[in-house]
């Protein structure tokens, strides 16, 4: 057996025991994200208050360990932040996966999600890692219209 696996304990723990995978009755923003190449399907729910602060957040759906753990790490990070801060973190995460590296300060900001950095070198799994983040970003930038919700696809961009 190979003893250097990508599937470390942080990742498997988030996958097997996700803290944020549940329904969210108070959600005032909801969006579905699809990864057609894997069949992964995620629902991102946010409860955002009048000041634009994400009070609660959760996700539901099915997918591989990478997509599930990545989404769970994302909610650890964005709950309690403003929409603008959450969007900036999503951009940082997407940049890390796209470019393969961030500055030390930026990596620190991403906390546990920074552990997914190596996905940048696993082209077949990039879409799994970004599914939750991509869905969040589309939702927060308003491209996912809340009045007329359409699923967000990792194939769009």
């Amino acid at each position, binding site marked *: *057996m*190979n003893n*250097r*696996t*990508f*599937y470390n*304990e942080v990742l*498997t*723990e988030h*996958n*097997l025991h996700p803290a944020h995978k549940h329904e969210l009755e108070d959600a005032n923003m909801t969006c579905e994200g699809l990864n057609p*190449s*894997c*069949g992964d399907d995620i629902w991102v729910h946010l409860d955002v208050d009048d000041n634009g602060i994400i009070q609660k957040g959760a996700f539901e759906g*099915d*997918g*591989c*360990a*990478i997509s599930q753990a990545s989404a769970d790490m994302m909610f650890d990070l964005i709950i309690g932040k403003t929409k603008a801060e959450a969007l900036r973190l999503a951009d940082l995460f997407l940049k890390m996966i796209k470019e393969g590296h961030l500055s030390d300060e930026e990596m620190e900001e991403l906390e546990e999600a920074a552990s997914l950095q190596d996905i940048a070198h*696993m082209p*077949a*799994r990039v879409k*799994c890692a970004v599914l939750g983040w991509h869905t969040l970003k589309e939702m927060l930038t308003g491209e996912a219209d809340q009045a007329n919700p359409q699923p967000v696809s990792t194939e769009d961009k």
Partner: protein
Amino acid sequence: MGQSTIDVKAVRKEFPVLNQSDLAYLDNSATVQKPQRVLDAVTHYYQTENANPFRGLYDLSVAATDAYENARQKVADFIHAPKKQDIIFTRNASESLNLVAYSMGRYLKIGKGDEILVSIAEHHSNMLPWRMLAEQTGATVRYLNCHKDGSLTVDDLKAAMTPNTRIVAVAEISNVLGRAWPIADFAKVCHEQGAVIVVDGAQSVPHTKIDVTAMDCDFFAFSGHKMYAPMGIGVLYGKSEWLNKMPPFMTGGETIDIVTTDRIVWAEVPHRFEAGTVNVGGAVGLAEAIDFMEDLGLDQIEARELELTTYAMERLKAIPHVHIIGADEPENHHGILAFSIDGVHPHDITTILSENKIAVRAGHHCAEPLHHYLGVPSTTRASLSFYNTREEIDRLADAVGQIRKEMGYDE
């Protein structure tokens, strides 16, 4: 079937990719590796005989034409087609099946009220062309469900056919279940009821002997790249009673006898169906691949692959939480083992296997409706060729046995 006498160590030496690393290549249903002699045959053609076939009146063009037409004869003999004109070269099985759907659909004047019966286990290649045809003509596609063990019987077919069934589209061997269906018996039923049968042979040609005449199918499609030939060459066999009447699929150079501004006379079969400059190098490679398989012996290939399948199933079945899709018996798998592991997504399984230098495929294997029907979102598929080894299967089984632990489960 006796024990295989194939000298695996020796035969593996003929495959450059198998010798460049310690990758256990177990994705043979997607495509197989190519032996050096096939690569050499293609190179030799381009080095010594390359010209545009059919057109030139000089020796080199005649040589290219001969190379291409000899390959056609070789394919006809290999699958026991009555004559070489029944063989149409295409890019792959997908193109072959699209050709049948388009040209036969038009010849039969498929329309409203007509039904096309497609097995639920079909690869998208033998499903979407029929769905397109139905969408364009107002016909209806109906589905022929197999059993959970992958079996499909003549009675199942009879029960699903109606007086309106005009085309039946089935694989000889499903690329997920690995089970061979009784095509000759199906063909008899189809013909008794006035329907034509279109067979996807992409997964059967690499593993079994093919006799389209005995099978009595109307059409039979397969790809070269799954049977040790290069990518980009495929075959459609069709009964000449149909091919001679069907309109072309794609049109262009070589598809015509006469073109004036107000008149077209289509060329004879098979040229009517081979528009534009053809893939002579690919056809030459396919002919060499056929020689390669016949030199090994199709019985030997079958015996060897059954031994490997039997061993792989033994090892995988002994691992808790692992479930093989389809039949229990190795002889009903033809080296194709799609499986799931409780609680672990196939993409994670495949990534972990890749970390262990084992190449398998994850997903729905271009048979998404079958996965919905079986109630599994996707599977991991290990698929074997005669050149695989017991040691590679051991590596697969050892790695599979560790996956749940790696993913954080206690057992």
